[in-house]
């Protein structure tokens, strides 16, 4: 059954057959997205394997961020945005009637391009998700969640003695790790990252990349990036978008060393983009 669907998909966009051995966490089929009259995504079919880092690459305005935001329905709040096709998370259509967006977003966390901690204390930033979802029964449990999340985000040692300090007072890289800690505090299954390092210096970037590499053991990570080096360094799978189309997807090594489509080749070798 799965195979059948997959063959059908592969006709539309060159699907990497090796991905089949792993269960697909997220599957997009025939996704079209319109902002008003403008079509931002054209018939995107993409399977995202679990416990891996999938990088979405492509030139600016190619629709990779749009696609990412479809996965946790962040486009719902955008005026005039219309989505066709189906996106499934563990086989369930996230756009189906009756799907609760709040619940979906608790399962699919998101880290944004610009670090955007709440103007609250570090502790409250991380505790916010568990608090609104009612994940902690008491203060001790909450402390536990906050500390583990900060630990996992590799931030705990730097902020241990100033958890009550405002999150906005941290450096850019620390803020971004705080946002990651905030996202993983609700134990999501998938973490979406929209160019998480574009506002950071190389050292902070290296830390985040290291972190992403560790996180993939427990989470499925989908990352939009402008940097092909970054995609090559941290991702196992790569999907290349161009002008709203998913041009090519596959193992990262394949995409970078032997791309099938000439547009992909032109992009990864730096001729376009």
């Amino acid at each position, binding site marked *: 059954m799965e195979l059948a669907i997959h063959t059908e998909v592969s006709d539309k966009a060159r699907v990497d057959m090796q991905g089949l051995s792993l269960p697909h966490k997220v599957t997009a089929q025939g996704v079209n997205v319109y902002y008003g009259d403008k079509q931002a995504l054209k018939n995107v079919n993409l399977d995202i394997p679990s416990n891996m880092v999938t990088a979405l690459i492509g030139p600016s305005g190619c629709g990779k961020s749009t696609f990412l935001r479809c996965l*946790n329905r*962040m486009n719902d709040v955008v005026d005039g945005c219309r989505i066709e096709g189906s996106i499934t998370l563990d086989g369930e259509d996230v756009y189906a009637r009756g799907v609760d967006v709040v619940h979906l977003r*608790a399962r699919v966390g*998101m880290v*944004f391009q610009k670090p*955007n901690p709440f103007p609250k204390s570090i502790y409250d930033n991380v505790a916010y998700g568990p608090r609104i979802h009612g994940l902690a029964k008491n203060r001790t449990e909450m402390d536990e969640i906050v500390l583990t999340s900060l630990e996992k985000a590799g931030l705990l040692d730097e902020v241990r003695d100033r958890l009550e300090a405002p999150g906005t007072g941290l450096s850019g890289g620390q803020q971004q790790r705080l946002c990651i800690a905030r996202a993983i505090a609700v134990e999501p299954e998938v973490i979406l990252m929209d160019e998480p390092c574009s506002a950071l210096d190389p050292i902070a970037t290296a830390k985040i990349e290291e972190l992403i590499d560790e996180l993939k053991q427990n989470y499925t990570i989908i990352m939009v990036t402008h940097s092909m080096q970054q995609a090559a360094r941290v991702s196992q799978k790569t999907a290349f978008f161009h002008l709203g189309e998913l041009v090519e997807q596959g193992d990262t090594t394949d995409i970078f060393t032997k791309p099938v489509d000439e547009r992909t080749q032109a992009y990864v070798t730096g001729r376009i983009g």
Partner: protein
Amino acid sequence: MTDSLSKSERIQAGLAKRYRAEKRFRLYGIVAIAVAVSFLAVMLTAIGVRGVGAFQQTHVALTVTFDEQHIQDNDWQGIVKAAMRETFPDVGNRRDKRALYKLMSSGAGFDLQNMYRDDASLAGQVRTIWLPSSDDIDMLMKGAIDRNAPEDDRRVTDQEISWVDQWLANDAIELQFNTRLFTSGDSREPELAGILGAFMGSLLSLSVCFLLSFPLGIMTAVYLEEFAPKNKWTDLIEVNINNLAAVPSIVFGLLGLAVFLNFFMLPRSAPVVGGMVLALMTLPTIIIAARAALRAVPPSIREAAFGMGASQVQTVLHHVLPLAMPGMLTGTIIGMAQALGESAPLLMIGMVAFIVDIPASFVDPATALPVQIYLWADSPERAFSERTAAAIIVLVGFLIVMNLVAVILRRRFEQRW
């Protein structure tokens, strides 16, 4: 080579011009501020100089006898008159006596009555008490009536001046702090008139106005900005709100008269109706300011909250509203300050009446500070002009206190970014 040199020279020459332009621009700014500040200073000093006199009132030390007969007849002014006759025993005929009585305020008797009410053991006693003089004597003491002017040109006769001089010689007349200005309601007699009634009227009206317009305005703004779909209906509502903000305030007064008084039969001259009318006027201001404040909240915070799985209400309540609150408070305080200074709509609903009693509830007849200022400014007595200025000082003081409260609230709500 020469070309590049001349280019740099040209830049050099341009620089001087640029700096001059910059200096000039700064100068314009400083001049603008100086002009604005001097206007403000002139206005405040003019009001201050004129109004400061009203904070003092001429009092006369009279030796009065609380005799049983007058107390029984409830003729308290009679006690004052008797004391006057004793102080000036040589005043004989009726006309002179009447002139003599007029030196004292007609409210002096009330003071005695109040004293007796507090302490009944005063009956039969003789006391020396400072009692308010009439407004003409007050004006004479403050120099507002010129002693050297011909007798026909002034409100005080030579005879009256000579009586005052006798008191002066005995140190029995002096200017004292005018507590009555702050503790009593309006009066036809300037020396008895106070602004507490108008102050309470303003306070009660403003509380009604705040209680109605703040929650309504904030809720409207939050709904329109965060929840409402953007379609032609919300556009229409927005246009109407913006138009309402430009409607002359007296129109709101007419609306209050037609709807609140004539249709809903609410009491006339009542602070509750005044507050409702002022709320109508304040609402658009608050809504517009609150929407601007909401729009100024960075979208990244909303995204962060949505991304965490916060519902729309949670996003608004936990993140957007706290960040927009300072801006909303600023808008509210501007609206309230407008409402405080507004007199036109209050005229239409009868808050312009002459009301002596101090309003104690929202339905008691009342007037408001700006209306009181208008009423006093219209009164012929010389002493009312300084009271007008004093009332303006109180109004401005009220405004400053209100703004201070707003600043303190803002500080408390402000989240460091």
